[in-house]
């Protein structure tokens, strides 16, 4: 077991290095650097000026070396200009170059400076991750119990009316990506001209113009049911359908197993058959699915945060990518990759723990 976890962690670290290097390489491609130079210094720069600007800011060394610097395993670049002023990666403006550390990369906890937010990346990231953390928490709190319940209920008696109704619901929500369901939900519940808000308003049931606000910006400070309902539902809906379908498939399969028949013919009542015999076996597969949902949830988060203007991780990612903020983008990808890999690891280990057949084999 320990060997297994260690191996998985080894593979995970290797994957993380490979992925961050890919991101680093892609964001540091010459056209991207050129764009960065122009946006940082002046849009009307000549090619020569771009090159010298890049050289001055340490972007001219080989990509592998810069990757090392960013990681913090290669000393940060330093440079002395004609006036004798020493600049360098690790030298903060206005500090004495002599006291600056030699290394300043991710391993030293220095994620660099965000060119878009004009803040250290670590601060940007901490703030946005906190916001997204709450969003994810509520999404999970809504999505997991609902989807498992739906899946078990419909898979319990395959082909029944409950099954058909729930399956139709599930398949519809899986066919609705977040940017579609978000738009529809807003149009339905948060538009002053369409959906149910005008009707409610006329009837005097709501005081404002719309039932729910169309943005979640206010949730940055204070999460309420009103400002969080729409974003959470938008992300959760897609996941609910997907996980419910997986659970249903797993449940129907389990219900046809011989040991369920054994239990039934032992005289166990239907409720007990489901609760005691079927449920645990049926939940093994969805557990993995839920964990592997995280990469897709990340997608949902990006879309929903953009749609509802909630300044979390996804929003930051979009801002960074749109403005070629290399440091922020790199940090975001590290976080994203880390989340994906950790959930994969948890899913593998959890699968082993849930399934006695594997655990003790």
């Amino acid at each position: 077991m320990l060997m297994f976890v260690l191996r998985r962690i080894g593979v995970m670290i290797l994957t993380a290095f490979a992925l961050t290097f890919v991101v680093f390489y892609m964001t540091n491609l010459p056209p991207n650097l050129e764009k960065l130079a122009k946006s940082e210094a002046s849009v009307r720069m000549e090619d020569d000026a771009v090159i010298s600007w890049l050289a001055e800011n340490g972007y001219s060394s080989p990509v592998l070396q810069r990757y090392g610097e960013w990681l913090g395993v290669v000393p940060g670049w330093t440079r002395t200009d004609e006036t004798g002023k020493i600049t360098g990666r690790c030298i903060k403006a206005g500090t004495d170059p002599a006291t600056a550390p030699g290394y300043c990369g991710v391993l030293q906890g220095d994620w660099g400076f965000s060119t878009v937010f004009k803040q250290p990346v670590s601060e940007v990231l901490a703030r946005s991750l906190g916001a997204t953390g709450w969003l994810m928490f509520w999404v999970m709190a809504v999505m997991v119990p609902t989807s498992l319940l739906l899946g078990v209920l419909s898979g319990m008696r395959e082909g029944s009316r409950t099954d058909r109704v729930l399956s139709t619901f599930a398949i519809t929500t899986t066919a609705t990506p977040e940017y579609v369901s978000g738009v529809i939900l807003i149009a339905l519940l948060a538009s002053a001209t369409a959906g149910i808000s005008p009707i409610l308003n006329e009837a005097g049931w709501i005081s404002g113009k719309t039932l729910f606000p169309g943005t979640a910006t206010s949730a940055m400070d204070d999460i309420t049911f009103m400002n969080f309902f729409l974003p959470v539902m938008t992300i959760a809906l897609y996941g609910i359908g997907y996980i419910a379908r997986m659970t249903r498939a797993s449940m129907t399969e389990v219900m046809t197993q011989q040991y369920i028949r054994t239990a039934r013919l032992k005289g166990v009542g239907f409720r007990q058959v489901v609760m005691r015999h079927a449920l645990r076996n049926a939940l093994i597969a969805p557990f993995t699915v839920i964990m592997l949902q995280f990469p897709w949830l990340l997608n949902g988060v990006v879309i929903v945060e953009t749609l509802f203007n909630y300044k979390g991780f996804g929003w930051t990612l979009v801002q960074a990518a749109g403005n070629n903020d290399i440091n922020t983008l790199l940090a975001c990808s590290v976080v994203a990759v880390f989340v994906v890999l950790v959930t994969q690891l948890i899913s593998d280990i959890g699968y082993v723990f849930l399934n006695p057949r594997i655990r003790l084999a």
Partner: protein
Amino acid sequence: MSEPWDPSKPILEIENLSISFFTRLREIPAVMDFSCTVMAGEAMGLVGESGCGKSTVALAVMRDLGKNGRITGGSIRFKGRDLTRMGEEELRHLRGSEMAMIYQEPMASLNPAMKIGAQLAEVPMIHRGMAKDEAWKLARQIVADVRLPDPDRILNAYPHQLSGGQQQRIVIAMALMSKPALLILDEPTTALDVTVEAGIVDLVKDLGEKYGTSMLFISHNLGLVLDVCDRLCVMYSGEAVETGNVEEVFDKMRHPYTQALFRSIPLPGADKNARPLVAIPGNFPLPHERPRGCNFGPRCSYFVEGRCNAQDIPMVDVADAHRHESRCLRITEIDWSAPPAVARTAEKAEIGRVVLKLEDLKKYYSVGTSAFGGGMKKVVKANETLTFEAREGETLAIVGESGCGKSTFAKVLMGLETATSGKIMLFDENVQSTPIQMRGTDTISKLQMVFQNPFDTLNPSSTVGRQIIRALEIFKFGDSDAERHARMLELLDLVKLPRAFADRMPRQLSGGQKQRVGIARAFAGGAKVVVADEPVSALDVSVQAAVTDLLMDIQRKNKTTLLFISHDLSIVRYLSDRVMVMYLGHVVEMGTTDQVFSPPYHPYTEALLSAVPIADTRVQRNRIVLEGDIPSAVNPPPGCPFQTRCRWKSQVAGGLCDREVPPVRTLEGGHQIKCHLPDDVLASMEPVIKIAAE
């Protein structure tokens, strides 16, 4: 119990039961007009080929036919109460407490995520409201009753931690937890090895007597039914065709199907040349294509046009017999004691030169022991020092139970794997370390294989003809497509399949027909050596005979050497010239068929012979039941591989068996045995099977 019940009345009374399955297209009758009675303490056997409806009857008794199945007529009375009219709740009280069921696949019938103890204790907790620790105590006692070692450990284990035999004992224990009045066993030993099967059969019989339980025992194996049951009911295509006392039906059968069934199974005394098996012609009718009148009519040799297919045939009592009934119109007209018309006897094939020679063949695998690939690597010795030769036209049988290494041997021989060391000489060519990709077309086409599972042997998405033609293309036969097509049709003739089958898809064929195509494909390149890996074990007995005979015919015609891998000693005895018995990778005994089937035996061969159920009342067997399971090949015992289960071990001085692998000893006539037993002990061995004088 609601009302007192008179023990002299039948426990189970099924009358004119009809069951149908309903699909979107049509109603498929699965069982028609089925009646039988089981008295208290009686064991009733339900025998028939696959698809005859025997399992459906069992499920109907449990009232668990699923969504599509429905009882369309008749009644099932259990202790006088009609089960067909019971509600769910009432049934729930009966199930598990008064009647219990045991299934074919023990692994599948146990919940993988629950401890054995919890699954056992559940039964009395539901039905008798027993407290949890009391229920566990009872479970422990029953586990001991089914003769499992170390009950405490087993109660706390999960099903996958037990072997197949142990799992089946647990399933039996579960059925016995509330001492039911009726036990239904649906092919309880089919998934198990013969020596393990023997133990389970003994256990079932003993427990049946101990608890006075009535049994409904479903099996396709006539020998097993003879061992276990008092009465039997033969089913064919949804109907009971004959029912009566086991001995009476076996000795004085009064239905043509029963007779044909017995003539198609190899009993001791049958011989492939002098007294070949008589296969039942034709195929089992599909449920919606049953003929009018007698279902067996089209395949029956006593069939009379206009009578047998004119009306429904009722069950009638057989004269001068007790509770013996048959569904045949011509019961009194047929001369039941007439010997089967022997179709043809064949000349014994000439045994020619040596075509295949193995010397000290070894095949070791290294496998990771942990589930996650980490941990220690272990060496599995799948084949240990195999030495033998096979001659032209000879049938060499390789016998052994699961894990004995016979399949590995086949793979090595075919070149799918390469041997660790040793020599394989095929027509003076050493192919030991030549994987199949490196072998010449000629070598490949000379050495071919027939596979076990008929449902797996043909590619489901390609026509029969196309698959044979592909073999011809690969073997570089013929110059044109037309030539190959003609040859393909000839091959279909050879395996006695209609030429129209060339355009059929495999799913349109029955199991036996698929196996024939497999044989045709193997002989496409004029194979000289054919490895047949359990070619008939997945087929019904009546089809087995036909496929076996076909193999023998082709062998005689082509002088093929046949390596017949099997676990079924009856068929091995019937068709092989020489036999090789394997256990855990070792050849423990080898000799001519007569040498192997008569003493002196290797102790394992002795147990194997004794374990095989034989459907002949005249045969007396010396019961030897092996303790425990076959050791895992990953972790074989030290010394003699068989020492953990050997009943002769005490006869060898000085614990030699624990320490040393026995040497191969050659007895008279080239009979080889790998055993430490001294000569005088070997000489004193009694035959396991005796046929009483006729």
